[in-house]
């Protein structure tokens, strides 16, 4: 039963989606520059298999690196804002303003600032776009900790650090993972923004760009699908981590 629900149902849904897509393109008679169909895309994968592998890896590791930075920095910032009201009131407007800037406009600035440092640039954009939800969720999780939770340990003379490790941190984990699910997708967008807007020949974004310059439309669509697959992969890694670390909060 479990196998049916976890594997067969999603697989069947995917297959149905591909069939409908193929049928739609066929019925409408669209040329592949308007909308490529699955049967157009498959040859692109076969033809450029090695390019897909190399570029997927580049996109993946830079996304994960950016996300890892976002987790460390976002959690630290969230802790500061969660525990100090002054920090919260001072930093929130700044953070919201920073988050409101479309990152597409930041990409050329970063590219100029650190010209030539392609990997660093890309990781930086992935980080900048994804730390915000993590910082906000950690700060909210910590600042809304019910006073009784603090008091049961504080009444025994426990230090603030002890209360943080034993209660505040584990209690915030569900919110943290909620934010991480958003952040993982954002980090992907960040990596690809850099790869596409400021191309330097690396990552799936660059492959997309070369498809565009060569009018290889099936290749462009194939890149989109590859990005979706990587996104799904990372998302489920987060889900697995959540189950391992905050499984108690998951209600079946």
């Amino acid at each position, binding site marked *: 039963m479990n196998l049916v629900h976890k594997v067969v149902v999603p697989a069947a849904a995917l297959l149905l989606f591909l069939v409908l897509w193929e049928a739609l393109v066929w019925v409408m008679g669209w040329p592949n520059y308007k909308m490529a169909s699955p049967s157009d895309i498959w040859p692109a994968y076969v033809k450029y298999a090695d390019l897909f592998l190399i570029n997927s890896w580049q996109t993946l590791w830079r996304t994960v690196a950016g996300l890892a930075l976002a987790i460390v920095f976002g959690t630290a910032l969230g802790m500061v804002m969660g525990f100090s009201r002054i920090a919260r009131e001072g930093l929130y407007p700044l953070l919201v303003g920073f988050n409101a800037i479309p990152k597409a406009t930041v990409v050329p600035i970063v590219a100029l600032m650190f010209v030539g440092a392609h990997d660093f640039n890309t990781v930086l954009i992935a980080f900048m776009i994804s730390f915000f939800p993590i910082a906000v969720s950690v700060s909210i999780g910590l600042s809304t900790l019910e006073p009784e939770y603090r008091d049961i340990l*504080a009444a*025994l003379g426990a230090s603030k650090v002890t209360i943080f490790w*034993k209660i505040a941190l584990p209690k915030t984990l569900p919110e943290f993972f909620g934010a991480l699910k958003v952040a993982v997708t954002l980090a992907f967008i960040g990596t690809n923004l850099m790869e596409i807007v400021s191309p330097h020949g690396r990552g799936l974004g660059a492959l997309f760009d070369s498809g565009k310059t060569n009018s290889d439309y099936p290749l462009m669509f194939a890149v989109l699908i590859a990005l979706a697959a990587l996104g799904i992969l990372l998302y489920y890694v987060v889900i697995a981590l959540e189950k391992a670390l905050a499984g108690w909060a998951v209600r079946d």
Partner: protein
Amino acid sequence: MGDAPLIDIKHVSHTFRTKSGPLQVLDGLNLAVEEGGFCAVVGPSGCGKSTLTRLVAGLMIPDEGEVWLHGQRVKTPRSTVGMAFQNPVMLEWRTILQNVMLPMEIVPTKTTKKQQEERARYLLALVGLEGFEDKRPSELSGGMRQRASLCRALVHQPDVLILDEPFGALDAFTREDLWQTMHQVKEKEPFTGLLITHDLRESIFLADQVVVLSGRPAHAQYVLDVPMSGPRDLDHLYTHEAAEMLTILRHQIEIAQGRAPAGSPAEPA
């Protein structure tokens, strides 16, 4: 005169600074509980009852006056105090047994891990939670969580137990069950109790002394000595004696709320 009271609150006043200006909650409050005694504190909503528990627990220091425990002035939290709240505050990521053992991770003890676990299991059995040690809090009912919370408050063998409306959120039958459990626990694990409650029946069923606080800023308006001592059963609540005590207490609450003139006699309804 014997020894000094175990809990001794001497002329305590406290004012909170709030957004809408200073708010004085306590005004010259005196309250003493002898060792092994059980004092219930009742009073109108918002009269500073919870502030009182935080003062005794050493979580805050009063502006004026002194709080003494065991002949020592309370200035910081101390591990000889156990606390339970209306919210059972179970840590969802721990099992019931791990929840109960939490205080022993903070309080320095000479006991081994095994002895601590034995004590936690013994307390859980005492409150009727045998067999639930490895369950998660989310698998237990509200009353059961409150029982576990009681075990956690007692596990490090505190001599003072502070109960801040622990039964307030439970249904009437569960609450009465827990009242009886409290008596059983106190027989096996003696403590000096300070109970905050809104339930007058609860106050005379559990305590040997009921203190009525006045409206804000609160002082001890009236002290009722409950003539029963030790364990009692629910039938006691339906005696003439109990009815008289409840009439007096209800009248005192009305005075505290400003709905009856001070000093007016308590007329049976």
